[in-house]
């Protein structure tokens, strides 16, 4: 039998087959063949929404002043030959709502959170920054193999996450502790992953900081750079289709985080282009922190940051002061609304920050930047200090509260830390699971062999460290 090249097959249980729907005005019938059909004669005919633009409908009218080529439908003819020079354009502006002194500078800005809510989010930012310091030192003491800190980027993560719905789907790169914390990842959740104990949802198989949470709708972090971006477009497309099929589902977006270095990877470009052409409700959030490991932005790109690329792909774009919690929150809130308009479309946010920390525990950044540069940045402006100033100006925060908060956070972190360190290791059984969805006959046989061996020599093995001991191998 002959298969058509792009048959619309049933992709997964998530997606029901498309049926003729009343809210889609443009429908064209196309013949598709069900994946289960075995003869060509039983091919069914269904209708799917057309997204194809027919070039023939755009033919040039005589004496038109505009280009009507299919590739540029709104371009005016010009009789002067001019190459556009990026340097002749001003850099895109950076939006801020509150300046580095904590003063509101956007007259239209009105905080939409109660005092308690702001304090909670400030608490999240503080928690992340204190946890980072403790875990960085713990790595230095050899208590875990690797850690990544996010100093300087707390507002980008906590601010943007606070504007998302808990139902939204999130893809992170690796420096987004703030997003996890804001969405409800507990200190124990962090520590269990870092110490790879039996409570780690990753079952001890991932490097530290590769968090993930099904309950919080955050995909597990993947090491290869920028692969999360096209996947985010795909997840957003799935949400869009889901809603087309069942309009009672609440509208959701995908938020995808990445650094400016990751935006050099081909995946970034593929992700933006496909999200734009497919109308995927995705909010791409770039943390432009000035460094990609040791590579400064000056050597990373020559254009106007990452934001300018969004325009090229036909994507609504904004640049925001990443040290301004309020600005990031406001921008993300608006971006989420935009992403859900017109049946779904991507939005790009470029949040400007400075990576105060080293790239990771494997990096010593003073080999490629001056310590004074970092100290300058810390002193001049930082996201935690700025929100604190705003809160103090409002009279809801003071030195005492700050000290109390820091002390109690520190205590909680150390408590979770020592608890997680003491937890048992994942069950022995997990060593055999999840390479494939089901245990293969070979793996089952190996598991049986191991169980028999352990039964035969009970004195030889101390299995007390492992969750459930050898019982996990039974069935």
């Amino acid at each position, binding site marked *: 039998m002959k298969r058509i090249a792009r048959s619309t097959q049933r992709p997964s249980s998530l997606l029901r087959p498309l049926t003729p729907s009343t809210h889609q005005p443009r429908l064209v019938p196309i013949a598709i063949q069900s994946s289960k059909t075995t003869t060509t004669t039983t091919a069914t005919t269904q209708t799917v929404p057309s997204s194809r633009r027919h070039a023939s409908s755009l033919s040039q009218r005589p004496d038109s002043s505009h280009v009507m080529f299919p590739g540029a439908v709104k371009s005016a003819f010009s009789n002067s030959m001019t190459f556009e020079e990026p340097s002749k354009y001003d850099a895109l502006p950076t939006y801020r709502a509150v300046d580095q002194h904590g003063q509101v500078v956007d007259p239209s800005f009105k905080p939409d959170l109660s005092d308690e809510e702001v304090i909670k989010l400030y608490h999240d930012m503080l928690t992340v920054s204190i946890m980072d310091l403790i875990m960085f030192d713990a790595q230095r003491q050899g*208590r875990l193999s*690797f850690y990544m800190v996010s100093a300087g980027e707390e507002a980008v993560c906590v601010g943007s996450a606070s504007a998302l719905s808990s139902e939204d789907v999130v893809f992170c790169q690796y420096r987004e502790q703030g997003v996890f914390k804001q969405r409800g990842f507990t200190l124990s959740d962090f520590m269990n992953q870092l110490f*790879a104990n039996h409570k780690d949802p990753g079952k*001890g*198989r*991932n490097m530290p900081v590769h968090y993930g949470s099904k309950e919080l709708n955050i995909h597990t972090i993947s090491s290869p750079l920028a692969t999360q971006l096209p996947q985010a477009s795909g997840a957003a497309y799935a949400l869009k289709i889901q809603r087309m099929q069942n309009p009672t589902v609440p509208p959701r977006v995908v938020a995808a985080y990445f650094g400016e270095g990751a935006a050099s990877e081909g*995946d970034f470009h593929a992700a933006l282009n496909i999200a734009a052409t497919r109308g995927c409700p995705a909010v791409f959030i770039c943390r432009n922190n000035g460094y990609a490991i040791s*590579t400064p932005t000056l050597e990373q790109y020559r254009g106007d940051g990452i934001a300018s690329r969004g325009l090229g792909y036909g994507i609504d774009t904004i640049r925001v002061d990443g040290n301004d919690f309020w600005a990031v929150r406001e921008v993300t809130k608006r971006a989420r609304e935009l992403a859900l308009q017109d049946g779904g479309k991507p939005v790009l946010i470029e949040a400007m920050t400075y990576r105060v920390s080293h790239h990771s525990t494997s990096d010593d950044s003073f080999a490629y930047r001056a310590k004074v540069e970092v100290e300058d940045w810390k002193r001049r402006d930082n996201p935690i200090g700025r929100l604190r100033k705003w809160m103090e100006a409002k009279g809801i925060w003071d030195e005492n509260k700050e000290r109390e908060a820091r002390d109690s956070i520190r205590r909680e972190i150390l408590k979770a830390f020592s608890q997680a360190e003491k937890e048992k290791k994942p069950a022995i059984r997990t060593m055999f699971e999840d*390479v494939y969805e089901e245990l293969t006959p070979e793996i089952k046989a190996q598991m049986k062999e*191991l169980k028999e061996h352990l039964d035969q020599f009970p004195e030889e093995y101390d299995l007390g460290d492992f969750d459930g001991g050898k019982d996990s191998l039974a069935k």
Partner: protein
Amino acid sequence: MSRYLRPAVRLASTASRVQVARPAAPTFFKPASVAGLQKRTYADAPSGTKDYTVRDALNEALAEELEANPKVFVMGEEVAQYNGAYKVTKGLLDRFGDKRVIDTPITEMGFTGLAVGAALSGLHPVCEFMTFNFAMQSIDHIVNSAAKTLYMSGGIQPCNITFRGPNGFAAGVAAQHSQDYSAWYGSVPGLKVVSPWSAEDAKGLLKAAIRDPNPVVVLENELMYGQVFPMSEAAQKDDFVIPIGKAKVERAGKDLTIVTMSRCVGQSIVAAEALKKKYGVEVEVLNLRSIKPIDLDAIIASIKKTHRLMTVESGFPAYGVGAEIVALAVEYGFDYLDAPPQRVTGADVPTPYAQGLEEMSFPTEALIENHAAKLLKLI
């Protein structure tokens, strides 16, 4: 069956061990003590030998080739200003300037494509990957462009390029950063693939790779960079190259042939010494050096002598380098074999992060020794 998973007996050493904390440099990864054994193989002027780390040897090879040929340049993430993520390119920027030693944005697809383009236009780029895991992003340029353009262009566009970087597992970097690509690249017509073990290997093979008119993939090993080896006087000279496609007998023997490469060579030598001590058997260790082309003559010559074959590698078992060697041995040397050939490989599982599981995922000296003893029916 259980060859794919490490035998359960190994649980003994890991399960009963008190693991307070994961040490920064786990003991498991301590270098095999082979320096003493190594020295024996250098008959020529031992007084002139000098100790080199693998890192220094690679650095010297790059410096000599940059010096010798103005068409050679080095490119990769952090190779210039930062001296390389593993300091292999240390000092090269200062010595050769930023036209010859080039930092790139984080775009493997971009800089690999650029290097291939430069090679197709007549330059001789050395393209560094921070690890070969990252080359997955740009593998199309390596496999479809670098390897095939000479053939597809009717022979008018040679591609003299060297891809190099650490390959295989390191310590505690989990599934997506711990893969061995020997079998991947070894399967591609048009590519040559080498995998050095010692400092001499590293220098001689990298120089040969840069000079070779074909695309050559040099698969190094992160855990070997800091290891010290004696370098013979001949190897210290700037005209030293090791021919691609020639294996080296690192340890002569008559009872069993172990064919191995990269870090597993050292482990196999240690296992061979232990087998000699315990059972008085002499194991021949053949350092493959070159994955493609493979030195079939050396393998068959050794089998003719020992009549038994075992391969040791850290790649996945299925469709691997070991599988290829066993197949070749059976095709060309079946009548000389007195026992079924065996493979010792990495486990058929995405590399786990947990230290105990990670240890069980790759060959160790004890495991090699154990399997060799079983093959020889000593236990």
